[in-house]
């Protein structure tokens, strides 16, 4: 913990007077408040040891308003791990017992149920297979139509998979909220399950899941089980796999006849996986009959919805982030929003109607339109 905090302080000492990522920093953008920019947050955290501010509900609340979507680091010229440093700062506050009741309750729920959404334990993995699919908690509880659709798509490309981590958080959520030990336990539990089913490859449903298991950047380290036989190259997003199979002619889709103006919404954490931006779009255009509208905040500047841990630590802010995405989508002229990430879909769907928008899961759409003739 001490090393983590020392690294965090070193990073935040760099960030406290640097203003160079604020053009993409989600919370500062939606609130226009300096204290909620990366510079402001870093200045606040580094001012506490200097005796300029005290930890109290207000200042702790600011630290727990950093969204951890990856935007600052994605646009940092010198790759400062700002988000990871803020997560470490939150971990320190949690360790000192200074976190809010909401955060404490989140910790308790995650610890007991391994997910933040439902009082229900993960389903144990059964069976043996070369390939496993991390079902997670978001697909299980936030957008349950995802899993049957994905299984149908995988079947269409001849893949039989075993589900692991069904109902379990991917660990990133706990890591973001300042519970690194709990995050490690969650990761480990899934990796152990992976080993138990004998899988050598783990399929992931979203950019967030992919980042959680295969984050390649130094600041966000996670344990790798000695028993798991997967290497980093064996973590694959389902959208990537489908795009690859589509390109190889191993799967095909019938285009829909729905000419509703549409847009693809890059999900939360998409900026952390920049190579996915074009690949997933290739997949979507295989099934949509008209050219896409594009959100202004897309691809490498995509903003998160309120689907990270802040939906618990600061629900009004989470809502503002989601509404900002919906406003962006409406401004693009789209009426139909497509995305594959269960959490992003869930949050967009909560308010989409107020913006005259309809939200549809990409996996479900693809499963509906998969062609039986390949």
């Amino acid at each position, binding site marked *: 913990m001490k090393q983590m905090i020392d690294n965090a302080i070193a990073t935040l000492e*760099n960030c406290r007077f640097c203003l*160079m990522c*604020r053009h993409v920093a989600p919370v500062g953008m939606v609130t*226009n408040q*300096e204290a909620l920019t990366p*510079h402001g947050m870093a*200045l606040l955290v580094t001012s506490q040891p*200097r005796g300029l501010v005290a930890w109290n509900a207000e200042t702790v609340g600011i630290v727990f308003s950093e969204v951890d979507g990856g935007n600052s680091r994605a646009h940092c010229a*010198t790759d400062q791990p700002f988000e990871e440093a803020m997560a470490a700062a939150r971990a320190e506050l949690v360790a000192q017992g200074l976190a809010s009741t909401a955060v404490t309750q989140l910790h308790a729920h995650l610890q007991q149920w391994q997910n933040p959404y439902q009082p229900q334990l993960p389903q144990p993995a059964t069976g043996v297979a070369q390939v496993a699919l991390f079902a997670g908690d978001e697909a299980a509880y936030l957008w349950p139509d995802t899993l049957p659709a994905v299984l149908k798509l995988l079947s269409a490309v001849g893949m039989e998979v075993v589900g692991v981590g069904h109902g379990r958080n991917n660990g990133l959520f706990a890591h973001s909220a300042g519970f690194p030990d709990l995050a490690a336990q969650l990761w480990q539990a899934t990796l152990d399950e992976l080993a138990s089913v004998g899988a050598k490859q783990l399929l992931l449903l979203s950019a967030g899941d992919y980042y959680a298991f295969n984050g390649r950047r130094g600041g966000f380290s996670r344990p790798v089980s000695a028993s798991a036989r997967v290497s980093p190259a064996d973590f694959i997003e389902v959208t990537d796999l489908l795009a690859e199979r589509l390109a190889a002619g191993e799967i095909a889709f019938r285009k829909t006849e729905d000419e509703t103006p549409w847009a693809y919404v890059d999900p939360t954490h998409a900026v952390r996986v920049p190579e996915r931006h074009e690949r997933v779009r290739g997949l979507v255009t295989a099934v949509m009959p008209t050219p896409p509208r594009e959100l*202004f905040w897309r691809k490498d500047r995509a903003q998160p919805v309120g689907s990270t841990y802040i939906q618990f630590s600061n629900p009004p802010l989470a809502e503002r982030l989601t509404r900002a995405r919906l406003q962006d989508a409406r401004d693009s002229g789209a009426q139909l929003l497509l995305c594959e990430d269960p959490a992003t879909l869930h949050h967009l769907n909560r308010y989409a109607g107020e913006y005259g928008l309809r939200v549809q899961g990409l996996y479900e759409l693809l499963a509906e339109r998969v062609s039986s003739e390949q």
Partner: protein
Amino acid sequence: MIRSELEEVVGEEYISTRESDRLVYATDWFWLPQMWLDRGAQPTLPDFIVHPGTAVEIAEILKIANTYRIPVVPWGGGSGSQGGAAPVFGGIMLDVKRLNRILEIDETSLTVTAEAGINGSVLEWALNEKGLTLPHYAASANCATLGGYLAPRGSGTISTKYGKAEDMVLRMEIVLPTGEIIRTPHVPDHAGGPDYFHLFLGSEGTFGVITEATMQVDYLPEARLLRAVLFQNLGHALEAGRQLMTRRLSPFVIRLYDPASTATQVKKVLGYEMDGAYMVMGFDGDPDIAALQEQKSLEICLGLGGQDLGREPGEKWWDHRYHFYYPPNGLHFPWMYGTTETVTTFDKLEKLYWAQKRAVEETYADWNVNYIGHFSHWFHWGASLYSRFIIPEPPQEAEEAIRLHNRIWDTAITAVLANGGIINEHHGVGLKLSRFMRRQYGPAWPMLERIKKSLDPNGIMNPGKVGF
């Protein structure tokens, strides 16, 4: 009572007196308040942070401030290096970032009209979607606002061809200190009477609050050709730059590093180890025309003893041009530092450089001062010298550090004024250079004071800045 009146204007959600907000708004990018915070001391804090959403709301806020004689400090991105947004007398911090809409992109006249609080990079992305660009490429674009480009008369990386921010603005909406909202004429270049328009450029919030601006934009260039040349003699390099400009070869950038910068900054950021003066030049637009301009320019450089380093070092510089300012490459604590940049005509430029360098290095040799400089914003008649002093181990005691800091500035600016320079080229005056305004303007200064008094009779607007 004041808070409740402000709340009536903007709503409770858009006003803050929170401890954390007040601390964060206590400093812009000026070394002095940052040093204060670094040492664990608290600079002067604003009393209220207010986030207006319209020019009308700003007008109402200024009326309240006049009633109670409260200072008002406009705040955009907070990226100013001169202390222009430091709330040295407390009062109302007027954060204009909610005024962030693009109102119109005119693809016929090539103009964009936007609210002044829009972020520079966001505005640029929006223009890029239409194949356009606002050619004010400020290093601070990721954080600065449109109003912040204009208020201190900023220059961007490609100002050598496209001009300063003030050369791109056609029209502005301004809230005067007494609460009237005015709009300058539709275009700036006319013979329809005195030019009050430019009075607000460089006023840094002391004459009013810029709330909207129409800017000239350009098509994104078809080609950008960059090249680097190494000179062993700084004077020859300056002469090359002079000839490129006076012969109207239209480089969009000439960035000439002095030997000290070449040995330190260029090495650190670009990884090149070279002795001499490293110069990057760039040409853009039509590929054929740009290539010809580059060829003619290269001939001049070679004729003056320059060594052609080819395109890669120029392109690498372009790709990393802002990295000089990011941590850990940029200026940082515990150093003491300042950018003593200036501008003058070609006949005085080299002499000014040596005079300032000698004055700073000799006077503060005991402090192991580093003086580095580059020449970055070129005109048909001269260029800017972007000079910096760095003291790696300044005094630990804050008051003593400030005294040393101010002495170095006195030395640097005295050298500037004695050698035909202006106290600043593009960072503005702010708090830092406020005390030099009377020396720079001499008998003209009282006239500016009368204008200030007339526009802002109660002196509420950004007091202590720009000499007022």
